[in-house]
């Protein structure tokens, strides 16, 4: 799925949530960050139990599908030279896995892509830019 399509879905959900629940979301972030998207989808489905909110549930489902259809992360020159570290074992809740991955160690200080894990698109170089640092 193209980033523009994902952004369009996020924008549609943003408008619905704003209009029907008063909840304001960050559309661009919603389209690139899986954790944030999952939280908004959860919120949308919770509110969709109320009458007249069927379209909210529908677009939440679309966003969820869009976020799952994510291509492999972009390869960098450095990544071609040095293979990436093995991912943390997928046990426990997502938050716990993230904090495990962020535990400081010398491996964390190596030159590497500083963007956090999450959905990436080969044509979307801005995924996660400015998260956890400017440079």
């Amino acid at each position: 799925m193209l980033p523009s399509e994902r952004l369009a879905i996020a924008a549609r959900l943003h408008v619905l949530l704003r209009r029907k629940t008063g909840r304001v979301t960050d559309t661009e972030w919603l389209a690139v960050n899986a954790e944030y998207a999952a939280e908004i989808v959860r919120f949308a489905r919770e509110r969709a139990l109320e009458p007249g909110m069927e379209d909210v549930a529908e677009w939440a489902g679309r966003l969820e599908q869009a976020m799952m259809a994510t291509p492999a992360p972009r390869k960098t020159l450095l990544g071609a030279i040095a293979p990436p570290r093995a991912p943390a074992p997928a046990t426990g809740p997502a938050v716990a896995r993230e904090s495990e991955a962020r535990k400081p160690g010398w491996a964390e200080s190596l030159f590497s892509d500083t963007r956090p894990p999450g959905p990436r698109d080969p044509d979307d170089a801005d995924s996660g830019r400015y998260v956890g640092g400017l440079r």
Partner: protein
Amino acid sequence: MKNTVGAKVAIGVCALVMGIAVWAQPGQPDAPAVPAAVSASAAADVGAQGVPAIVASAQAPVPVASAPAVAAPAPLTRPALVAQSSLNGADTAWMMTATALVLLMTLPGIALFYGGMVRKKSVINTMASVVAIAAVVTLLWFAFGYSLAFTPGNGWIGGTSRFWFEGLSYLKDAGKVSVSHIAPNIPESVFSMFQLTFAIITPALIVGAFVERMKFSAMLWFIVLWSLLVYAPVAHWVWEPGGWIARMGALDFAGGTVVHVNAGIAGLMCAYFIGPRRGYGREAFEPFNLGLTMAGAGLLWVGWFGFNAGSAVAADGRAGLAMAVTHIAAAAGAVTWMLGEWIVRQRPSLLGLCSGLVAGLVAITPAAGFVTPGSAVVIGGIAGLACYWGATGLKRLLQADDSLDVFGVHGIGGIVGSLLTGLLASPLVSGVQGSIATQALATLVVLAYGAVMSAVLLIVIRKLVGLRVDESAEQTGLDIAQHRERIGT
């Protein structure tokens, strides 16, 4: 209630500072200098800001041994009134220019550089912090700071003789003017102003570590206390010829340790104690306008000529060389950061270029009057990569929201520059040989003192007024919450 307690603590701190200074040295009024022999270590060129020997030799050729009839005036060992005719017009003009250049680095250089990198809702607060620091530190410098830093006292702290700029005179009819023993060829008013601009920019650099969440009042408290209890003593240790680090022979031409390592470690401590911005590591913190950042970086680059070449305290060949190596190192830093980013991220960014040139400038600062242009390429190039790592990999390791990478750029750049000065200082340039061990010791001492004192100050201020704004203020943005202003559309 907190304000009352705060006022009492402020009075206490001032009394403490004055007490230390009185203990260090009873006030010694100006007297037409009674020159004494400069100690060997003081004469051994500790760094241009404390180099009476170099300045003197540049202006007054050493008499040849076969003509002892004309005795060279012995160098001053403390501020003194001298004949106006003894001043050097070219040196004075250059130092006034350099002073303006260094002030330009802060106002508006740092304000633009940092203001462009924060989110739109806190641009005003970032800029206001820099302006407030410039004003507050100026008054502190006039009252206490200059005297504590640049008058003779003991190895640890200067004296009180220049409190409130007492004795800093220009007597037209008598034809006298006061000069510092550190810069005997220019009026002391110019020297003190030049040093003031360094005292301003150093705490202004720290702002980058705590933007977008620190209370404005807490920031002012921290800067006041830090300037008096950290900056002034460290400047005395390193730049006043009687300072203990200067006597040890450590080289710091324009402030690698005094300014950059000092600011870097203070910024890191602030980041730890104040805590990360809400959403840090999860949300994208979009910079307001990187065009402003580029304009600020340009002003820093140009202003750094005053910073480094001005630190020669003379309009001479050494100042010219300092200017050349400054420019070369900035270019090398920009290129290596750009290349590093290109390889790792596949994109060379404008912010990376700006950060790289600052990294090169930071690293050449302690070395500027000691190294050749070739060494400047090495220093700037290494610093560009080291600071790129400092602002990315090391930042992840340290896990502090040092928001604009004060430690990553200024701390790491200062450390790299200080160490490389020991390695690359050329006796042909300055007549001194560097020592990596001495440089490392000086750097470690400044790091340790800065870390401990900054931590103590932050703990005290947290008790007094609190360090950070509440959640709703942070959410709204500090521009509205702290200043009731908006940057505009």
